[in-house]
């Protein structure tokens, strides 16, 4: 049996496709923390100290890292950031959890009407247009504070938590795949139509969006303490674009920009956690090229619905994989069922290293606490190397 490692060393071993002391376990705990910690969603977003206190109350369900909820910074900015900002997109921050309120959910409405116009005049005409009433409801003080000052305050709070509790961050910066952004800016139906009727424009727009998105995420990671705070060097690179993409659409519209972004992050010294939702099993042969030309230990793929056994077969020895205890099981199942499912994932994926036991997209806010705990205990019980 190997000596017990620190959380960060354990994760580092998995990134490097090596066997750690045991399989790391990292449920992506986002809204469940304020829910169980007794604070509102608005407090979660605007009062980092309260979020930290809520996190401390939930240490029993924290695995080998903690999600610092970088979406907070994206949400409150006035420049568009990573698809979550309140200005160009309708992701409402509610005061309360359901049934009185809701967790931030996307209310689809087309923001971009004309791709050429945006590429010609930029997003300023969308951000500062009177049609977007949110901008005019917020004052200049608010703009300066949330755009330029709040991120420093937020980062400082998390740095203190990491130093005190020795729990690494899940990420330091966050970027969306441009196809994912277009899904937000156009809506799923219109984007699907565009892919077939205006494919050239979709590709031009993906190129247009990529540079800003990548640089902004790396800057965010630096503010969070990349190179000084464990985990802050990781860029969380999100999503698989419209659900149900065929391998042909994946290869043509998703993959080139995904690979370009991953290459850029890694070549600039950051790690990339590809958080790719949907079932990407049919595209695994393409995905296996993700590390082409890159050094080992810099890329991880966090799968939502993809078949993990198959993913291990195709990607094992190439790239670390993360996933995917079903959300439904965490909400409606029993601890015994969660333990059994986690055990099976470990049996299928852990051999030789390069596997992290995780949730699907994230831990649902209303998951049973004992179920998340059962997942962590399963890694300790069955994951020893």
């Amino acid at each position: 049996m190997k000596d017990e490692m620190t959380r960060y060393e354990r994760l580092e071993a998995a990134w490097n496709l090596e066997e750690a002391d045991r399989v790391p376990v990292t449920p992506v705990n986002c809204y469940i923390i304020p829910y169980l910690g007794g604070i509102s969603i608005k407090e979660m977003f605007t009062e980092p100290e309260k979020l930290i206190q809520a996190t401390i109350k939930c240490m029993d369900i924290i695995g080998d890292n903690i999600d610092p909820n970088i979406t907070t910074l994206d949400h409150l900015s006035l420049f568009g950031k990573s698809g979550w900002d309140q200005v160009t997109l309708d992701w409402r921050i509610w005061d309360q959890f359901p049934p009185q309120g809701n967790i931030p959910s996307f209310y689809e409405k087309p923001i971009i009407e004309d791709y050429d116009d945006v590429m010609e005049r930029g997003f300023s005409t969308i951000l500062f247009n009177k049609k977007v009433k949110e901008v005019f409801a917020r004052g200049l003080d608010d703009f300066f504070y949330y755009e330029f000052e709040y991120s420093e305050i937020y980062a400082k709070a998390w740095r203190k938590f990491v130093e005190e509790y020795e729990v690494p961050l899940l990420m330091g910066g966050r970027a969306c795949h441009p196809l994912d952004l277009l899904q937000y800016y156009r809506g799923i139906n219109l984007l699907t139509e565009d892919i077939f009727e205006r494919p050239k424009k979709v590709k031009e727009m993906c190129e247009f969006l990529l540079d800003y998105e990548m640089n902004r995420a790396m800057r965010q990671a630096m503010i969070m303490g990349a190179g000084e705070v464990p985990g802050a060097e990781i860029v969380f690179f999100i999503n698989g674009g419209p659900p149900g993409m065929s391998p042909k659409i994946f290869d043509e519209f998703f993959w080139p920009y995904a690979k370009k972004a991953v290459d850029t992050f890694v070549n600039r010294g950051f790690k990339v956690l590809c958080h790719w939702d949907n079932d990407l099993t049919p595209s695994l042969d393409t995905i296996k090229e993700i590390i082409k030309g890159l050094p080992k230990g810099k890329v991880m793929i966090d799968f939502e619905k993809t078949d993990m056994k198959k993913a291990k077969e195709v990607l094992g020895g190439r790239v670390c994989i993360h996933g995917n205890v079903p959300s439904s099981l965490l909400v409606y199942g029993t601890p015994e069922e969660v333990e059994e499912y986690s055990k099976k994932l470990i049996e299928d994926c852990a051999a030789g290293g390069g596997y992290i036991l995780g949730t699907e997209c994230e831990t649902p806010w209303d998951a049973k606490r004992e179920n998340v705990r059962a997942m962590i205990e399963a890694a300790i019980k069955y994951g020893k190397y």
Partner: protein
Amino acid sequence: MKDGVKKILEKTKQGLKPPTDEEMNEVTGKWLFGKNANRMLQYAPWSFLLLKILWKKGEEPWKTE
């Protein structure tokens, strides 16, 4: 912080090549002002006056309703 963690962080820090202010200005300028980005950046801070040319008639943000 344990020595093993410090070592990993030191190695990471040495390899980081984050975007410079110049790069950030360039990509943000392009994102915000599209093909007008170079002119906007060239004439900053006076470029805010140039914002006006970016809007089409009828959608000016400063127009009172």
